């Protein structure tokens, strides 16, 4: 299955003055976008960060993608992990290092260096490392080299001055050999690397970080320096998931995906009417927001039900209710979701987002989408994901998620609980990614609470500006006709008006199915927005 985002190949052309610097594409999802094409070709790049931030994996993926996608063989020099550990660690990501080795495309040179075993007496140099590196490069005809991690050498060799001089020579030597190299280093206190190696690497420095905030761990990547090249300067969240690393470049959100003109029904005839008469565009993102108990989940379920009726697959991520609960609740409004589950058209994934990190969450969601291949996806509610991480991270992650779904042509519906006032900011950022925004609210009048629905925004289509009452009935969602008085009449006031209309002395006629007549263009918003 092709999980590569097609837009990653269609990068905007660089200005001419930057075009001269050759780059080696890493093949790592998102990284080539933020580096404007990859790492400096034929030069060393320093990647530093604390233990467990993903340095080794980034290096390995750089080599594996180089071999599989760019025909460039690689050498991995490991001072920390053994060959067997490395192979086992990335097996779950789908990288078969042993096979690449057997095919003569990859050489792994593990050198275990125990500081206690090495004594020093007199002058020395690192010629041994150069020779073994050179032999490995020659053995596979390597264009790419990863050395992981240089910090171990400082632990092993007591003579730091000689080591520094030798590392400087190593970086020059790598450049002379013309290999694109990644050297990893550990983050030090107050300096980028513990031993200040960054001074020797002048071309490209990338910093990885692994932070826990609000009990959610997020990995981030930042390009500190990239001589002679444009690059993104932000901190980008990145994920480690079943397909490897994905950097989340929110600023280069792919907006080049193919767009569809096909329309999908929301499963409620009158709602489709409100959306230009034909429902939403396939591949669009829909946000249903509103306060508690306004029927957001029911709209989401109806949307899935409609997809299944068309014979399409629907994937429902439920963060608050179990599958059984949802199926039972929807049965009470006349929706039989159980049949779709049985037929394999509908799949529920019910988890509490706080149990796993947001990062883990989104990556598993992406994996499920790739596996189940649904045409519609529901995330109910997205506000629960927002509680799983700091809002800035969340919006970056969600951007990626929306992007991921769009690229695959999946129509996504997110529900959002609007009572979370602190989420407003995040919501606004998400709103920019949303194509159709439905607002549901309860209106309080005449001693009743009645539900109302309006279309806040619908990109690329004519849509109704009406606030409509919607009802949860035994036959699912129904959107009531419009009765205008001073404002939209709901509940008993509407029924009274309907009665009056039937008796032949009412106000304007009930809106009939068909293109929605803009009867209520002048209706004050205040009635709906609570």
């Amino acid at each position, binding site marked *: 299955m092709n999980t590569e985002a097609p837009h990653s190949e269609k990068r905007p052309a660089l200005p001419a003055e930057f075009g001269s610097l050759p780059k080696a594409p890493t093949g790592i999802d998102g990284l080539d976008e933020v580096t404007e094409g990859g790492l400096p070709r034929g030069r060393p790049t320093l990647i530093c960060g604390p233990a467990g931030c993903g340095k080794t994996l980034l290096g390995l993926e750089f080599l594996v993608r180089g071999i599989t996608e760019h025909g460039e063989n690689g050498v991995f020099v490991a001072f920390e992990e053994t060959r067997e550990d490395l192979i086992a660690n990335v097996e779950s990501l789908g990288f078969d290092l042993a096979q690449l080795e057997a095919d003569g495309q990859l050489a792994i040179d593990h050198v275990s260096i125990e500081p206690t075993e090495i004594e020093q007496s*007199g002058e020395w140099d690192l010629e041994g490392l150069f020779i073994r590196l050179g032999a490995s490069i020659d053995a596979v005809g390597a264009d790419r080299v990863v050395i992981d991690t240089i910090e171990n050498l400082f632990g092993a060799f007591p003579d730091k001055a000689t080591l520094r001089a030798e590392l400087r020579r190593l970086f020059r030597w790598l450049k002379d050999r013309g290999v694109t190299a990644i050297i990893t280093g550990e983050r030090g206190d107050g300096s980028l690397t513990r031993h200040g190696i960054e001074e020797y690497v002048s071309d490209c420095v990338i910093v990885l970080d692994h932070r826990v905030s609000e009990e959610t761990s997020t990995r981030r990547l930042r390009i500190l320096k990239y001589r002679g090249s444009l690059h993104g300067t932000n901190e980008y969240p990145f994920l480690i998931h079943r397909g490897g690393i994905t950097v989340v470049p929110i600023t280069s959100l792919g907006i080049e995906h193919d767009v569809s003109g096909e329309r999908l029904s929301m499963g409620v005839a009158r709602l489709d009417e409100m959306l230009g008469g034909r429902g939403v565009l396939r591949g669009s993102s829909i946000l249903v927001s509103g306060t508690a108990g306004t029927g957001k989940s029911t709209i989401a379920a109806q949307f899935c039900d409609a997809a299944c009726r068309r014979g399409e697959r629907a994937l429902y991520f439920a963060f608050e209710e179990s599958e059984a609960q949802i199926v039972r609740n929807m049965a009470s409004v006349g929706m039989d979701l159980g049949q779709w589950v049985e037929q394999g058209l509908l799949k529920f994934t019910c988890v509490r987002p706080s149990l796993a990190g947001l990062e883990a969450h989104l990556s598993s969601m992406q994996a499920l989408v790739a596996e189940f291949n649904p045409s519609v996806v529901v995330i109910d509610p997205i506000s629960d994901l927002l509680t799983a991480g700091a809002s800035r991270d969340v919006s970056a992650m969600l951007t990626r998620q929306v992007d991921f779904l769009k690229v695959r042509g999946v129509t996504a519906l997110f529900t959002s609980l609007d009572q979370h006032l602190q989420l407003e900011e995040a919501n606004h950022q998400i709103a920019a990614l949303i194509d159709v925004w439905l607002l549901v609210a309860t209106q309080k009048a005449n001693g009743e609470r009645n539900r109302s629905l309006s279309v806040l925004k619908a990109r690329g289509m004519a849509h109704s500006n009406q606030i409509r009452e919607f009802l949860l009935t035994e036959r699912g969602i129904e959107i009531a006709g419009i009765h205008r008085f001073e404002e939209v009449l709901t509940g008993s006031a509407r029924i009274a008006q309907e009665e009056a209309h039937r008796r032949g002395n009412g106000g304007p006629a009930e809106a009939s199915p068909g293109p929605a007549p803009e009867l209520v263009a002048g209706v004050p918003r205040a009635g709906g927005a609570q």
Partner: protein
Amino acid sequence: MVDTALERLEAALAKLESERYELTLFVSGASASSERAIRNAKAVCDLHLGGRHDLRIVDVNQEPDLIRGSRVLATPTLVKEIPAPERMLVGDLSDRERVLLALDVRVVEKPSAEAA
């Protein structure tokens, strides 16, 4: 008690004295430090190991495969493979005391020097 402990120590020392040493010296070509290392290694072997040794000299430029199979990064490096534990001694071996210490040779030399 004391006697047996002493006897045991003497037996151990005797065993050490008769133990064979397998050493490999990795050098790179004709660099000055490599030449010094070869000279110093040979001197240590002749003076302190008295023929109980097997010293192999590897020029990593000539035999890169040998270094790839080892854990050596620096040159010159003297590796003591036998007796265990394996030790690595980096440098031109100009500090004789350190070399003997690293090779566990001094322990053998000291008592016999006192006995003489």
